[in-house]
């Protein structure tokens, strides 16, 4: 076992040597990452992995990264986590909602190992939950979409109908309507997070039905390619900047940036100060990045969007600020009220003006 560990850590050790940093006397802290997709999926998993790598680099030789890609959500995930514990991981990040119950289960068995579960709602003594306020970025996308559309039809490719996605749709819609009262949303659900062929089909359908702005909550660049082919259609990068599709069709993006959080939490374990937390960070903390707004957007709209970004980052503006009614017209938030995190976390209704039903 010793020998194998040496082999596995060969690269990190070499790196530390190159940097001239003396190898620490104690073993490096092993940090495990469980990924739901392949590490080169171009979206969700790739960004978690990038951030994990950044974290590993940040700590030089003091941290060793272990990861497993494409782990099915279920008993297989439990086994992978258990294996990571046996390999000596003291901190394990599980990066998909479906790992919630498995994480809680494994954590109960290994009380001295810390777990961090992404996008869930359960925590425990040694399990933290973390997620990003992507809806803050959606507010900016909605504003840009409302400004840029000429047909007043905005397409939205939904992935899986969970609160995170519903929040995004609502946030984008509210802000699109705010700047352009005539916009309507066409929403298509594909029931998957990453399926390039289906995403391409969905984008084409939306374009055919007259949408000239496409928002996506799915991970591939396929909708961008479809928009590029169609011509005058605007898109937004998802999870990744997808800058290679700028300045047209991609006019901005929401970038997942987990690195600061990963560094902070790993540092906490190294310092022995780790405690279970429920983190929900947004633009302000840098967990949600807003990609460069491209030159295809007129200056005034760009300035408007950037002002909103800064206001959200500073905490001066909350995307869910009343008055907002629910889809059926009943009041949700009164004038000036701000949605509380509890309601947002389990959000499962559309706001007034959006047509259609959330699939169930």
């Amino acid at each position, binding site marked *: 076992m010793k020998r194998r560990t040496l082999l596995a850590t060969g690269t990190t050790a070499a790196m530390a040597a190159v940097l001239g940093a003396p190898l620490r006397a104690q073993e490096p802290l092993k940090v495990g990452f469980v990924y739901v*997709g*392949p590490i*080169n*999926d*171009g979206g969700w998993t790739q960004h978690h992995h990038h951030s994990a790598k950044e974290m590993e680099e940040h700590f030089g030789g003091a941290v060793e990264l272990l990861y497993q890609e*494409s782990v099915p959500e279920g008993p297989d995930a439990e086994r992978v986590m258990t294996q990571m514990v046996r390999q000596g991981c003291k901190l394990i990040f599980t990066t998909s909602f479906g790992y919630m119950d498995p994480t809680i289960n494994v954590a109960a068995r290994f009380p001295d190992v810390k777990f961090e579960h992404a996008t869930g709602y359960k925590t425990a003594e040694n399990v933290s939950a973390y997620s990003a306020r992507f809806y803050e970025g959606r507010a900016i996308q909605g504003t840009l979409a409302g400004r840029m559309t000429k047909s007043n039809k905005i*397409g939205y490719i939904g992935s899986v109908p969970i609160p995170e996605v519903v929040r995004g749709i609502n946030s984008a819609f509210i802000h699109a309507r705010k700047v352009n009262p005539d916009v309507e949303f*066409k*929403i*298509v*659900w*594909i*029931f998957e997070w*990453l*399926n*390039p*062929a*289906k*995403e*391409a*089909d*969905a984008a*084409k*359908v*939306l374009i*055919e*039905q*007259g*949408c000239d702005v496409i928002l996506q909550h799915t991970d*591939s*660049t*396929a909708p961008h*390619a479809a928009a590029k082919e169609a011509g005058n259609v605007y898109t937004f990068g998802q999870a990744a900047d997808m800058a*290679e599709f700028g300045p047209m069709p991609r006019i901005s993006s929401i970038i997942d940036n987990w690195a600061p959080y990963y560094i902070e939490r790993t540092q906490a374990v190294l310092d022995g100060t780790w405690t279970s937390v429920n983190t929900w960070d947004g633009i302000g903390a840098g967990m949600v990045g807003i990609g460069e707004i491209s030159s295809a957007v007129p200056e005034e709209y760009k300035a408007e969007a950037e002002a909103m970004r800064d206001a959200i980052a500073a905490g001066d503006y909350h995307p869910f600020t009343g008055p907002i009614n629910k889809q059926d017209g009943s009041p949700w938030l009164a004038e000036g009220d701000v949605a509380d995190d509890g309601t947002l976390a389990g959000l499962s209704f559309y706001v007034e003006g959006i*047509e*259609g*039903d959330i*699939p169930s």
Partner: protein
Amino acid sequence: MDLSAINPILLLASLMVAATPIMLAAIGELVVERAGVLNLGVEGMMITGAACGMIFAYNTGNAWLGFAGAAAGGMALSFLFAILTQYFLSNQVATGLALTLFGLGLSALLGQNYAEARPPAFPKMDIPILSDIPVLGPIAFNHDPMVYVGLILVAGVWAFLKFSRAGLVLRAVGENHEAAHALGYHVIRIRILAILFGGACAGLGGAYISLVRVPQWTEGMTAGAGWIALAIVVFAGWKPVRLLLGAYLFGGVTVLQLNLQAAGLAIPVEYLSMSPYIATILVLVILSAGRAPGSLGKTFHASR
């Protein structure tokens, strides 16, 4: 709800595109099954084709060479299947399933450095005059060349099976390999050729997804298209002309359900998505007795 938002011309045009990959893979599998071999590895060959297509297209800068590479890749994988089932007499069902597993792994390995790659453009053909015909023009005559390659292949297979002597022999081998052998035909050689053709077609179908429809390479991106191709062959009752219909039905349901969703119609997506499979079963029941090639899936060994 706003059904008027659905433009039937565009719907039919995108249906032709959505049907192309499954049609390509299905026409190959149809020939394989008509020769009496059941290759359940279509998904594995398609995904390998998708990866090989990207690798060849990206490195040569030519989409056509990409398709050629994809056909070669699919064929190489099907060759494994041919060797195992025809020479080593392994069970076709198990070997086909193993082929899918193998293909998924192989393609992921081959394509691991191509996730960021973008294939060269594969422009639409603007067929003069024909594409200007109202309604029919944009539906049928304004696509990329592979759409027509698919149609030509189907027509070619139809003519081959119906009119050519080789097609007759192939069918004879599929219906009753003992009898065909007794008549002096090389059952195994014919089957291997059919399997290779099937592999090439599956490879083309996969590459259509990675080079034209999406276009990018992602692990597992065929997402079950190979299995749909298998369903289409059955739906078609092993007849090329009906296979066209089947491909349009399966491709159409995907496009249609997205269109209905976008138009704001509250449809239970799962039930609409499962409908073509149920339709296939119904077709099977109606077609009923003995339409499948007589020797389908059975192992042949001459000395029996």
